[in-house]
């Protein structure tokens, strides 16, 4: 299958500073998470793909189109939801989204129709005749999303879509991202600092560090459970429990207010732990094998 984004020895520099250093990779997931610490070059990568800043050498392809040679084609295929506030305060949501649609080449009528459609879709239905200036932060994010999908892009680039959203808005945004992925119409590139969001939505992750690719992986395959590490959370007496566990051969370390991490010996049955708990009449609020979270993956990648 054709890769969504193809980086071929891509270099970008501002003046002397090298921001991206010879990135070479072909991404072909449905929804790709783009991670990395501040200044790793995430935004620069996105800007380069959109043709905002030129590649000093090498090139990149989006869905098979060269970002320099076929810039306009690329920008027709891409929808972009920037990180920062981006709207026109004195326009109503409908005319704003409509205009953006028309600028992407939709006909007047089609744009109007789509504008209503996507505004309903993102959940601004009732508010779509209001001026964007009156919108709350959450609504502004949704409006930004609406303008990014109005022209039916093949690749949707989301830069920090959940940043600063309150829990309700955040859940909604996550739901929308899932739904768009499942629609099968588009690929998504999600750039976020909130590992939890990426974890909940993405299939693949690309991790940058200081302008280099340090890790690219499929989350499922990375998240194998390890049958020897367990997490325990008790309610009530702590220290004694830890000792008791060590007594039955677990290396046990307390993580404060009732949380423990334990390494089990070979051939060990969880039952034993319950037995100990039962013996001490202690509540095991949580007991489960430890799986690698995205945070672990990320931290590992950073050590490289």
């Amino acid at each position, binding site marked *: 299958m054709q890769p969504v984004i193809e980086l071929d020895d891509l270099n970008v520099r501002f003046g002397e500073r090298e921001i991206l250093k010879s990135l070479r990779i072909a991404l072909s997931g449905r929804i790709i998470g783009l991670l990395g610490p501040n200044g790793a070059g995430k935004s620069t990568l996105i800007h380069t793909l959109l043709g905002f800043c030129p590649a000093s050498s090498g090139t990149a392809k989006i869905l098979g189109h060269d970002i320099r040679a076929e810039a306009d084609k690329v920008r027709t295929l891409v929808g972009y939801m920037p990180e920062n506030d981006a709207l026109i305060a004195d326009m109503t949501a409908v005319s704003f989204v409509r205009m953006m649609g028309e600028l992407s080449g939709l006909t007047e009528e089609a744009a109007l129709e789509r504008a209503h459609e996507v505004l309903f879709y993102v959940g601004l239905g009732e508010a779509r005749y209001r001026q964007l200036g009156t919108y709350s932060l959450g609504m502004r994010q949704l409006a930004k999303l609406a303008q990014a999908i109005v022209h039916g892009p093949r690749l949707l680039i989301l830069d920090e879509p959940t940043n600063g959203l309150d829990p309700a808005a955040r859940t909604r945004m996550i739901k929308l991202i899932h739904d768009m992925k499942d629609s099968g119409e588009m690929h998504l590139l999600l750039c976020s600092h909130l*590992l939890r969001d990426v974890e909940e939505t993405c299939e693949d992750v690309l991790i940058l560090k200081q302008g280099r690719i340090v890790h690219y992986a499929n989350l499922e395959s990375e998240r194998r459970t390890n049958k020897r590490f367990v997490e325990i959370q008790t309610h009530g007496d702590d220290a004694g429990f830890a000792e008791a566990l060590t007594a039955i051969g677990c290396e046990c370390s307390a993580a404060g207010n009732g949380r423990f991490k334990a390494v089990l010996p070979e051939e060990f049955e969880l039952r034993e732990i319950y037995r100990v708990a039962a013996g001490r009449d202690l509540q095991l609020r949580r007991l489960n*094998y430890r799986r690698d979270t995205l945070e672990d993956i990320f931290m590992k990648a950073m050590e490289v």
Partner: protein
Amino acid sequence: MTDSANITLDNVSRFYGEVLGVNRVTLSIPPGITSLVGPNGSGKITLMNLMTGLVRPTYGEIRIRGIAPSEPQKLFHLVGYSTQFDSFPKGLTGFQFIQSFLRFFGYSSATSLELAGRAIAQVGLTEAADRKIAAYSKGMRQRIKLAQAIAHDPQVLVLDEPLNGLDPLIRAETIALFRRWADEGRHVVVSSHVLHEVDLISDRVILLTGGYVVAEGQIHGVRTEIQEHPMEVLIRCDQPGALASRVFEQEHVVSAQILPDGSGLLVQTRDADRFYRQLNHLALDNIQIESVAPADDNVNSVYQYLIGGEEVSK
């Protein structure tokens, strides 16, 4: 804990014209990490601004460790506030910014230099300290704000979404920092939207909505207060059917549904403590229990129960 060591709000209300900021808030916040949680416009910011005297209460009384916010000259030797405003005095480098405002505290230039250096080091911005703030990234601006709030080593820190825009590495470090301060017996009042983080970091939470405090205290305590929603426990085991029947023998169990994929069972109980105790014994007879976890004993579900997923377009 005597009140003179706490942050106390006594029946505080604030209106902006007709708009309600917060209404009839009465709190006594002990040292430690306290998280303010609530939807946008729930009054978190008003509450923080009230604590730091940036706005004055329409009525009610506020004391920060016994000091009234209307006395800045006393208050701010004690308090540091990192606001949500992402803006800075023009044309200053990170270091100049911290240092010149430290001078306002009456420190000698030598001390202010030293303090500024320390604060910047604490947030890990040392290498960028001499660049103009205008050229900082969102994360760096967030950190320089934090540094400015802690530079004079205050006992009470009020931080508005301090983790917003920080990358995972810095996030972890910053959280560790909060922990340390809390353990030193300082107040760390944090507002946050990222509930699972609130779960991890905070000693106590304050839930606000529409300008009212709807819940306050330790998460677990808050959860148990909510009677109308029985505790949910997720159990993964080899024979959920059998376990379900055993579980049902207990009268405090409301429901036990076998998960769609048949890998386990979701139990609703009115008496979590008893349930967990009995679970130990169930585990000992021939049911292989893979894992146990409370399904809704966290801020997220408390939030859902008390505030709920309100419509965004409001």
